[in-house]
């Protein structure tokens, strides 16, 4: 009798389980518990967790807030694809900073200070986009109408890339920008 035939013993559920199998089941079960408890553990003791904070918002209101930040803290401009001018802002340490994702651009460019904490807001104006900070490798999904707020602390300085890593149409691969972290 094999696996493609009915079990030979009609009372198969009364057969004892062999040692090797039961040992393996126990090992796997304990491991499953470790896998599970690592996640709450990291929420308590780890430093890399996502916020539960998100608000519903409209593109208009979100753009207005971002514009306000740009007006206050713009330090210079840079040239993106097709000679578009993109403002670079240097908001104060500890403040709320806003980043707009839209087809096919990140706006504006943020300049942050090393070691400081910021409340980073992310929202899309149209379709889904993916915030992928490189080479740090922090990846966050960006939705339209949901404003996601994360507390972020750049611990290293330099020029970072922000790649869009959620497919967002025909020019998806051109949606890339920068994030600067400067030493104080």
């Amino acid at each position, binding site marked *: *009798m*094999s*696996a*493609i*035939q*009915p*079990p030979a013993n*009609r009372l*198969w*559920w009364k057969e004892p*389980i*062999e040692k*090797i*199998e039961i040992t*393996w089941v126990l090992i796997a*079960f304990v*491991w499953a*518990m470790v*896998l*599970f408890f690592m*996640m*709450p553990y*990291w929420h308590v003791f*780890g*430093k*890399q*967790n*996502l*916020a539960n904070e998100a608000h519903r918002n409209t593109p208009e209101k979100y753009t207005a807030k971002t514009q306000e930040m740009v007006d206050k803290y713009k330090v210079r401009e840079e*040239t*993106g*694809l097709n000679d578009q001018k993109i403002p670079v802002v240097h908001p104060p340490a500890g403040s709320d900073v806003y980043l707009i994702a839209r087809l096919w651009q990140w706006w504006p460019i943020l300049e942050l200070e090393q070691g400081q904490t910021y409340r980073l807001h992310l929202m899309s104006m149209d*379709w*889904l986009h993916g915030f992928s900070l*490189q*080479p740090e*490798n*922090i*990846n*966050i*999904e960006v*939705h339209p109408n*949901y*404003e*996601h707020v*994360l*507390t*972020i*602390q750049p611990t290293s300085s330099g020029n970072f890339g922000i790649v*869009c*890593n*959620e*497919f967002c149409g*025909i*020019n*998806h*691969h*051109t949606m*890339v920008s*920068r994030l600067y972290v400067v030493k104080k």
Partner: protein
Amino acid sequence: MAVNRMFRTCPASGLKFHQPAEALIRWNAVAAVVSLLVGGILALLIVLTRWQAVHLLSPDVFYMVLTAHGLDMLVFWIIFFEIAVLYFAGSTLLGCRIAAPRVAWAGFWLMVIGALMNNYAVLVREDSSVMFTSYAPMGAHWSFYLGLILFAVGALIGCFIFFATLSIGKAERTYVGSVPVVTFGAVTAAVIAVFTIASGAIILIPTFLWSIGLVPSIDSLMYRQIWWAFGHSSQQINVSAHVAVWYAVAAIVVGAKPMSEKVSRTAFLLYILFICLASAHHLLVDPGLTSSWKILNTSYFLYLAVLASMVHGLTVPGAIECAQRAKGFNKGLFEWLRKAPWGNPAFSGMFLSLIGFGFLGGISGVILGTEQLNIIMHNTLYVPGHFHATVVLGTTLAFMAITYFLIPVLFRRELAFPTMAKWQPYVFALGMAVFTLFMMGAGTLGVPRRHWDVSFSGNPLGFEFPGTAWLMIALFGIGGLLAVVGGIMYLLVTVYSVFLGKRIQTPGFAHVTARSGAAAPVTAPVGAALTGTGSVAHPQAASGTFVLAMVFFVSFVLYYFINWKYLSTVWPLK
């Protein structure tokens, strides 16, 4: 209406084929292989584009081809084949007539029309390059969604035909006691499929209505949540189906029987119980969901489905080991494995599928599905690297393996190009292993998936990926090409054998009618290959398997904690 009760008994295997079921299994398998052929051609084009030293396609064509590849492979190839597996595990393994063959044919044609309509939207209309996930609010042509809906309805009909077939088997007493473990696995797959298709309907029907202007808008978060309840559980159908195929091949080739029916069946049951709504692990870095929901959902309630897969990972090779030892391959820990029928592509394909699925697909899946670890891999190439290890190295290779058994038994043709067939699983598995490993490597370095140009050429704000990332991209390109060669070998062998292969003639071969209201005539239920020997061996004898399992376990633990270590170096976030 008279019920067709014509059966034939396969002289080689002793299996009993009901005439209408046999035709249905053949046609579903053929439709599957055609989808694989189309998807495979597209795969070649994609690999040659992502490998940017070649960069074959233009961006619009690349995104279109990528959309079609995902659908033709993940949806059409896999599900057509699964319907064939269901009918085989229901009608053939139970020696029982299939329920309502006309309805089953209607389901089949709905699936065919759906698949054609969907491909038409993507490849002919060229206005539906939205990827197989079709995340709203990005929209496709209505025929894209309608095609998927028709296909899903057809597949749902297939599931119900399977359930009805089981109850006929019970009523007409074509088997005694409980259904075989393989059929039980198929039941698991079908139960999950019903749930999955319901989720698919809940999300695709409103999206279809939206595409023709009857629904004003679709919320992006709701869409992702429900779409993945459909998209993820369908992966669990695949796992159940290919684990069932592993048990089947192990039984057919070496006469393996489950070490313990209780353990194997409970593990299948865990899939059913703990898979429902497993969608959050695709949304671990999305806004608007709480961490507690994400944790509970991503772990499928405490990782009991992972537990189930780990159990099958032991019991399948364990069953093989017991059967082999009973045949006298008893020396040391591994003689049973060394002396296994490695030249038989059904066996080698099945065993490589098991190893590849466990080591590459399973481990990486758990890592990706861990709430915080997802931050460092979401939407990078790690993701397609992981799922090519599960659904290609695991599911696809398992399905390829069982085809080698089905060609003589179901199509009654001799296997053409036996040497090529013998090598095919090795070439395909090696190519895919290299492909998935280096894809995951590139993902670890942050290279995005679904991306036409990771050099960002001409973009003043572009980002430069490190040289190692480019090396990994080239290596997965080479692995992908090798896998394509393995795929071509499979297609050559199967298509040639089925259409032009030498017919198998058996003197005195005929279909016979089963008496109305009763089962097909009972023949010896097993042929030469099927003489089960497992019960003779002592399951304690599966010590070699246990050693292999421990190797797996140690790799799993190490790699898991390496990723936490890596995460801990990333900028603090909360």
